[in-house]
């Protein structure tokens, strides 16, 4: 059954990708890309990667699509006819593809429990992590503890993206008159519904944040979902109103604070005599230490991701608003 679903979903995914190549309407391309992300997330679920699916759905289909649409609003919808030859790219692609196909010939069978991947390193995560780290969600254990440094790097990447976007697009506060102009002002139903839905979303974000140790989710997903709530607010009620809720300056501080919060856990464990990010040393009991450590770093991740995603949206959105007013 799972195989069948897998087959069908993969086929749909491939079709979507191929369709994207030939579409000239960029709006449709982006819509299809949203579907592409959704579909791939479905496949991730089907392949047991629930955390990944969670992230892909919220990031790929959510944030990326919103940002792409924001860009498209500024750059125009139609792709112009491609004048230069597509022969060389095709050759390059074929060569790369051939190399990959060649590589697959020796690949271990799909889903075979005897594959080398499942023999080394991973068994310890599966067998020991509930005891060593004390969390039922192994992905969170590995993410936050065993490979906590990767996750620190990931948070820094997000932070770096903020720096990059800010250096390119400056967020400008609009004046009061503009406030009435922007937003979906004519959609009254939407206004009511949004007011109803946004608290629910934030509630859900908090749930994801603190339930991530036990089920799918965690700081990153929670941050994105919380940011999505405010993005919704900004979309419906206009950017100036969103600024009134959370200002850009405050977001910058949050973004930095999240990274520093994460790192401070590491520094604290250094102070306690352990290595960087060694949660065992944080509290008297190693398990308790792990628990505190993971909660705090997940919080750090959540704060940074929320702040960064929202700031990036602000940056794009304030460009759109300005161009529209011009």
């Amino acid at each position, binding site marked *: 059954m799972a195989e069948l679903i897998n087959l069908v979903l993969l086929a749909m995914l491939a079709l979507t990708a191929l369709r994207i190549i030939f579409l000239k309407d960029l709006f449709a391309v982006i819509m299809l890309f949203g579907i592409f992300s959704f579909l791939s997330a479905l496949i991730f679920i089907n392949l047991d990667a629930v955390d990944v699916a969670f992230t892909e759905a919220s990031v790929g289909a959510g944030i990326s699509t919103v940002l792409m649409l924001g860009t498209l609003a500024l750059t125009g919808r139609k792709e112009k006819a491609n004048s230069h030859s597509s022969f060389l790219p095709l050759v390059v692609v074929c060569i790369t593809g051939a190399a990959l196909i060649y590589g697959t010939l020796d690949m271990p069978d799909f889903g075979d429990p005897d594959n080398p991947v499942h023999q080394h390193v991973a068994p310890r995560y599966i067998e020991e992590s509930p005891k060593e780290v004390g969390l039922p969600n192994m992905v969170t254990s590995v993410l936050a503890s065993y490979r906590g440094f990767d996750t620190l790097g990931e948070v820094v990447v997000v932070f770096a993206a903020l720096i990059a976007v800010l250096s390119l697009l400056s967020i400008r506060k609009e004046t009061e008159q503009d406030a009435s102009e922007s937003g979906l002002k004519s959609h009254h139903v939407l206004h009511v519904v949004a007011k109803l839905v946004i608290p629910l979303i934030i509630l859900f974000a908090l749930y994801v944040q603190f339930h991530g140790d036990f089920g799918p989710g965690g700081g990153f997903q929670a941050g994105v979902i919380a940011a999505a709530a405010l993005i919704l607010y900004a979309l419906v009620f206009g950017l100036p109103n969103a600024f009134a809720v959370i200002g850009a300056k405050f977001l910058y501080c949050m973004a930095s604070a999240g990274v520093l919060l994460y790192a401070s856990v590491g520094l604290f464990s250094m102070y306690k005599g352990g290595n960087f*990010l060694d949660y065992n040393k944080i509290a008297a009991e190693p398990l308790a230490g792990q628990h505190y450590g993971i909660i705090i770093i997940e919080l750090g991740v959540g704060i940074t991701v929320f702040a960064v995603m929202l700031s990036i949206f602000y940056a794009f959105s304030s460009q759109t608003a300005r161009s529209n007013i011009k």
Partner: protein
Amino acid sequence: MLEQHLAALPILIPLLAAPITFILGRSWFTWLFATSTSALACFFSWHLLAAALSDGVLSYALGGWPPPWGIELRVDTANAFVLLAVSTLSTLVLVYAKDSIEKEIEASKHSLFYTAHLLCLAGLSGMLLTGDAFNLFVFLEVSSLATYTLVSLASDRRCLTAAFRYLVMGTIGATFILIGVGMLYMMTGTLNMLDLASRIDVYESSRTINTGMAFIIVGVSIKLALFPLHMWLPPAYTYAPSAVSAFLASTATKVAVYVMIRFIFTVFEVEHVFEEMRMDLILMVLAIVAIFKSSYTAIVQSNVKTVLAYSSVAQIGYMILGLSLVSVTGLMASFIHIFNHALMKGALFMAVGAVFYRVGSVDIKAFRGLGKQMPLTMAAFTIAGLSIIGVPLTVGFISKWYLVTAALEQNHWVIAALVLAGSLLAVVYIGRVIEAAYFQEPTESQAHNKIKEVPWLMLTPMWVLVLANIYFGVDTSLTTEAANAASEWLFQNTEMATTRQEVIK
């Protein structure tokens, strides 16, 4: 306590300093803070190199989890040596940047510049020190994103398209590395480089491993701008702010070269990569073509920063050539050139940036008559240029010496001759600039403007590098010792290296 964490500090210091710099906002204190943290990182990297030279290997298990379950920082002479170059250059460039970016970057973005610079430094240090293949990818992206930011900060609009091209190529490269690492992981179940190395043996003839290796090598080649995958580099270096060009040209590609070396020598068996896959031939040919094609392109450019950028591509050719010779001396030549090239290109780009600071253009016409007007800057350019050419008593000579020695060791006379012939092209493109500076009359408009020497804060780091060019060209004990230790270390346990050495002797 610091001794214990020595391996982690060069990454952590800039990593933590970056968000603080961001909050600090726009003030001279931001500059001071960023510079001093970078200097601190530099200080620790000196210690790290000393420790690596005396102890061999330092392993630092992050999170207290032993490798391969946790992420390991693994410092040996090879990466400590490159790290030293990177952190030193970073510090010098930051000192230089204060005045330089006043001119080139609008004031509201200064703190972003410092933040991105520190992030880039952290990313590069992370790439160097980590012993985990996936962690390397993460830090690669940290440094790449920071780099795109830095490139796009310039005021010329062409920097945007350059940064975009860089972003697309860089991401393709990073994704290729990701595919490669995935394939390795698929066949071994581990991500720790040493562990990978020990487990790849079992599956040596697997097609999947070979494909993974090919993808990693191609991906890294994009990042290090190996011909013909270098097309992103010249525009990026040309249109980036001067301080950024100086930093990137002297560090970013070098770190990628290091990654290439690390993968080939530590993760894959040298024997496998070079004797069975014959990667050395491919790399050798590409390196030679890179040297000549890029040097030639450099000659016909009129923008001096483009000239230097193409020169960088050519110089990368030398580094790859050394590595493709598959001998201790060859690898040593690569390492020495990584270090030395950082010194020369840093100084050259700083000098060009100084010219931009005063004249407002980096076209070769703008250099006319500057020999009299900006004597210190042009003297710095001349000496660093001589170093690129490979004149004795500069570091360039040392690099070339080892490279040619390595080629001759294996009786590759043609390659040795080509290497030297390649440096003749450098004579031409450096000579054009020097000639313009000293022997041509300034243009009408420039003659009227009184062009002064740049502020001492820009001159100091430039001359520190120039003096380093001479110092390390005369006293080679540090570079030689470190590079030799690094390459011998990398060749350790590989039978092939020993047999080759025997054949040579």
